[in-house]
């Protein structure tokens, strides 16, 4: 084929890393606001960040690849258990524990992906539930290793970089989690806009179309599952490190269903949507459950119905529409 390009006409180019920089600053600002609003609840905020990783991870496979899953907590839970077990057996460096969580999450992601990505639709959903339930059952059965229904306790991580110890007010845990979130979010922002990420979105649109332009669909989905596993693994590791306990709830079906609800609430297919869904759902849950311990689930249910009816593509969609409209001004389209 001939090269038809003759003149290089530069288009409007975005400055590299501006989006990522803005994203990082926004997360840091949100963290500062959280510290200011809930100074006595840093443990809650740390837990909230840990779950945010799981929602981001789910967004990669569900929002970006269109994979239906209700067993995603398996990757989070396996990583949390791996970190807990390693810590109890003497690995106490938080960064090393984080790495263990990433490796465990990635492996679990690749195994799950290899099974689940072979199918589409309902069989895929059922298989994802089966994988999740299998991991939960194993965690329960292997009591000598995981603590079974009593949970795995005695996780006492060392100092971060040998300097900052985990205090009872969760200051270190919060800052460590926030810093990790910034790094992971920036990396994911680049990743989802890479050719690999774009092709995953193409696969979600129509996998046959993707095949026609030379995309090997299955391997890509498995790799994406591995990446999602790594992100979920970070969340699992941080949760284990910050709470000092890993329970069966970390791999349970309820956790998988809950993070799916968070993703739908925020808006699937957008990293900001995943993050917003995780934050809003958990803060709303915290406030409402404190205000009304008996009927808070009813209120959460009502919120979800309202969101699905009035913003079916998630809370982030109206915001993005506004941004696009503003960005479109003065630009031919």
């Amino acid at each position, binding site marked *: *084929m001939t090269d038809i390009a003759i003149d290089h*006409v530069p288009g409007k180019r975005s400055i590299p890393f501006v989006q990522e920089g803005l994203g990082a600053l926004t997360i840091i600002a949100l963290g500062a606001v959280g510290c200011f609003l809930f100074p006595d609840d840093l443990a809650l905020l740390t837990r909230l960040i840990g779950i945010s990783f799981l929602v981001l991870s789910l967004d990669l496979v569900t929002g970006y690849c269109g994979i239906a899953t209700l067993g995603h907590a398996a990757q989070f839970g396996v990583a949390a258990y791996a970190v807990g077990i390693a810590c109890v057996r003497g690995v106490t460096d938080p960064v090393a524990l984080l790495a263990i969580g990433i490796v465990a999450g990635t492996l679990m992601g690749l195994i799950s992906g290899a099974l689940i990505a072979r199918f589409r639709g309902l069989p895929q959903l059922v298989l994802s539930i089966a994988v999740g339930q299998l991991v939960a059952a194993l965690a329960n059965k292997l009591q000598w290793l995981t603590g079974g229904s009593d949970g795995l306790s005695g996780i006492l991580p060392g100092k971060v970089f040998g300097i900052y110890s985990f205090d009872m007010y969760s200051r270190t845990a919060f800052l460590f989690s926030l810093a990790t979130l910034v790094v992971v979010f920036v990396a994911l922002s680049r990743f989802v806009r890479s050719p690999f990420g774009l092709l995953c*979105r193409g696969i979600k649109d129509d996998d046959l179309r993707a*095949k026609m332009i*030379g*995309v090997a669909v299955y391997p890509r989905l498995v790799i994406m599952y591995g990446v999602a596993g790594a992100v979920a693994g970070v969340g699992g590791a941080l949760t284990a490190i910050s709470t000092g306990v890993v329970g069966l709830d970390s791999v349970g079906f309820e956790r998988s269903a809950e993070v799916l609800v968070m993703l739908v609430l925020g808006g699937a297919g957008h990293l900001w949507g995943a993050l917003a869904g995780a934050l809003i759902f958990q803060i709303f849950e915290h406030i409402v459950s404190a205000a009304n311990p008996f009927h808070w689930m009813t209120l959460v249910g009502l919120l979800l119905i309202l969101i699905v009816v009035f913003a079916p593509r998630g809370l982030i969609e109206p915001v993005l529409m506004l941004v696009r409209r503003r960005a479109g001004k003065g630009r031919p389209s």
Partner: protein
Amino acid sequence: MPAAPLEINGLCAGYGPTLIIEDISFSVKAGDRLAVLGRNGMGKTTLLATLMGLSTRHDGQIKIGEQDITDRRTSTRADLGIGYVPQTRDIFASLTVEENLRTGLKGRPVAALHEAYEMFPRLRERRRNYGMQLSGGEQQMLSMARTLLGKPSILLLDEPLEGLAPVICDELMALLVQLAASKEVTIILVEQQIERALDFADSVMVMERGRTSWAGRPEVLIADRALVDRLVGVGIH
């Protein structure tokens, strides 16, 4: 990739057990252009789909140069240099024009997008619009530009002019003529606009009920309107 010759021997294919095309054989030299004509439902689209590995092959062989690709997967065929612009355009609706183009780069640098914008300046104007926001003509341009960015050695075009305004058809055909003149891609064009197809091609195959009913030089058909009418059911105006 440089243009590659294509050789088809005794190809029988369809969807599942249903046979649509039977015993099709032809060859196209590297850099040549073949027009596949025929009435609706004669198996032209199935032929291209089979070349791309999207239908069920029952028998026969497909070769690119010396390489037998008969049992290769669709994605592998695309990697080996077959570019397919289907009738349905098949762009990614939830990606922007630029993102759609980037999916076709196949490892080439992002700067190569300018090739697409030079081919179709309208795509530059629409680069931030989503696939679903484009008109039919723009979708066709995008589909073609995305395929060409991958530097195919064989280009399969399934009714690229269908439903487009005459001015857009002229634009697309001008581009195809330019591509064909370069001799750097082998083109197989399925088209219902007979006159344009005959002007473009250097060999023609007419299909009827899944089989080849006529094959030869386009000049023969251009000179014999009655023959065109008998084979394809429409005259040249």
